[in-house]
């Protein structure tokens, strides 16, 4: 393999994992934008989505498309349920309490699934071939695998739909209004509860899509799969400027690319360290991330 094709294939890897990070990061960012909560449980919504896909495909032998839809739906519902049960009662509580609750929910999902399904990974490589078994493209000695293409295309499509949703629709306008000023939005007749739930639903649906795309690359589900993936997506969201949708996308791709580059030079064991190092450097240089807005306390 030529140097060029090595670089290209690493770039493709970076794009593939980067777009998954970006999708998940969007969920973190949207939720933060609207209720200023770092939703620690977001990564675990991916895990639940992956388990749902595994149940449908391996246990119930459902059609892949049906399974995927059920998995995304499960994630979406879970996100809304978590918001209603755990976060809504705390809307006026100190931010710290809300953050700790989110950590608690994350813990509960991980350990609950471990209790129910065991700590071992659920293999679904044979089931996933129905999704990933598509044609791959070759050019200049490099092959662009079907899962990679699928992941990149689906992510870009999802982000386009999301941008349209937030910028052009009435619901999107409500979301922006609530994130700007919850009280004022309520006075304008916007249902804050519905808008927040909707935001969670959209963010969780993206996590569900992220789960399927993740399974395309690594076809197995385990209780802690969401924690590292979530953590890195979360880093991506913070990196890009939490609360900012384009920021989350940029952050996701930066993290994906950085990981691919570190692996390319043969230092893959340092991958996680590098991701967090980037986070620390960015936070210190620009504490609100690349596209984040500065919020100062009024005296």
């Amino acid at each position: 393999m030529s140097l060029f094709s090595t670089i290209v294939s690493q770039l493709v890897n970076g794009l593939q994992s980067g777009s998954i990070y970006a999708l998940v990061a969007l969920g973190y960012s949207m939720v933060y934008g609207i209720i200023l909560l770092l939703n620690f449980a977001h990564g675990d919504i991916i895990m639940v989505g992956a388990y749902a896909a595994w149940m449908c495909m391996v246990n119930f032998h459902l059609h892949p498309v049906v399974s995927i839809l059920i998995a995304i739906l499960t994630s979406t519902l879970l996100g809304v349920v978590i918001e209603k049960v755990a976060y809504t009662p705390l809307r006026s509580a100190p931010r710290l309490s809300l953050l700790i609750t989110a950590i608690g929910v994350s813990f509960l999902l991980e350990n609950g699934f471990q209790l129910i399904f065991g700590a071992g990974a659920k293999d679904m490589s044979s089931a996933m071939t129905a999704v990933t078994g598509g044609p791959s493209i070759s050019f200049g000695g490099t092959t662009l695998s079907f899962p990679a293409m699928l992941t990149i295309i689906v992510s870009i499509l999802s982000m386009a739909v999301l941008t349209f949703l937030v910028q052009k629709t009435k619901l999107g306008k409500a979301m922006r209004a609530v994130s700007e000023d919850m009280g004022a939005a309520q006075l304008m007749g916007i249902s804050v509860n519905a808008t927040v739930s909707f935001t969670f639903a959209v963010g969780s649906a993206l996590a569900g899509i992220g789960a399927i795309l993740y399974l395309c690359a690594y076809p197995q589900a385990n209780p802690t799969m969401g924690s590292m993936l979530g953590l890195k997506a979360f880093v991506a969201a913070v990196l890009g400027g939490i609360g900012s949708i384009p920021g989350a996308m940029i952050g996701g791709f930066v993290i994906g690319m950085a990981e691919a580059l570190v692996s390319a030079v043969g230092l893959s064991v340092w991958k996680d360290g590098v991701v967090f190092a980037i986070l620390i450097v960015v936070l210190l240089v620009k504490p609100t991330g690349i596209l984040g807005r500065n919020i100062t306390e009024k005296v």
Partner: protein
Amino acid sequence: MNQNQKRIPMPARYAINAALVVLAFVALNLITGALSSYYTKILMLVGINIILAVSLNVATGYLGQLPLGHAGFMAVGGYAAGIFLKAMPMPNLDKLPEGANAAAAHLQYNFYVVLALLLAGLVAAIFGIIIGVPALRLKGDYLAIITLGFGEIIRVVLLNIDSVLGFDFTFGASGLKRIPKAATVSNVFICVVITCLVIHMVMKSRHGRAILSIRENEIAAESCGIHTTYYKVMAFTLSAFFAGVAGALYATYVGILQPNTFGFMKSIEILVMVVLGGMGSMLGSILSATVLTALPQVLLAFDKWRMVLYSIVLILVMIFKPSGLMGTYDFSMSRLLEKFMNRFGGKKKGEAVKQ
């Protein structure tokens, strides 16, 4: 405040508390002799977790920040102590050579252990400063994230540093093995007492008040001329120091260290103890660390459910009593005695004075 209430003067308060500590120490030693090694192990683990919770409480409860990398400091302390003790010529107390002076050997052994504990605390404190200075420029969520990042980096470095150094230092994923098992119930107990005492003394002083003022209102604290950055780093470093000591105790308790023990999950476990007990209450931290450590160990069948229950309890406490079970309440033996004295006639106690 009622002017006619009787107060116990300061020296008497200290004497009462000192007597209680000595009493507890003697009682603990008596109990340990009668207990199986299984229960003494639990006792030690309880002690270690108390130190972790009480020290995290300094940063979380008193300073009002949310660091998510406490396990990182514990790891640093543990590895510092482990590597140090392995390098030192520790006498083998079980098999002393013929004619060796047993007392001198014990003294030498304990000297190294004390040195290891101090070293662990110091190394962790240095990491506390290195991490605290940049991290504490950030607030709230961002501080939580950046400390989480630092904690993870510490773990990744401990896992992979050997390949960079070219020799065995932390022994990576296979773990730092055969650390002398020096932890005993009594030295864990002494460490718990020292930790609580030092933190208490600091908190009941101008330095402690400065730390509390940052939690209460940072802008007002600055307007009172309090150097907030300095005190934030100070509280953070204090917190890291004792986490390091706890790490050293842990190292000498299990005898083997693996980087993945000190992941994000461990930090959260400690946080749960603090939050549950009530952020800002030392007694709360002590009680919840005790209960959360001892309960799953005693009820073994419960172990599978432990983490699930932890998380449910955490969520429920946040929803129904966000300030934790004890709130910021702190127990004072003297205050309790004063209550009794004032209720049941004041003439009994000679040292009671009017204030």
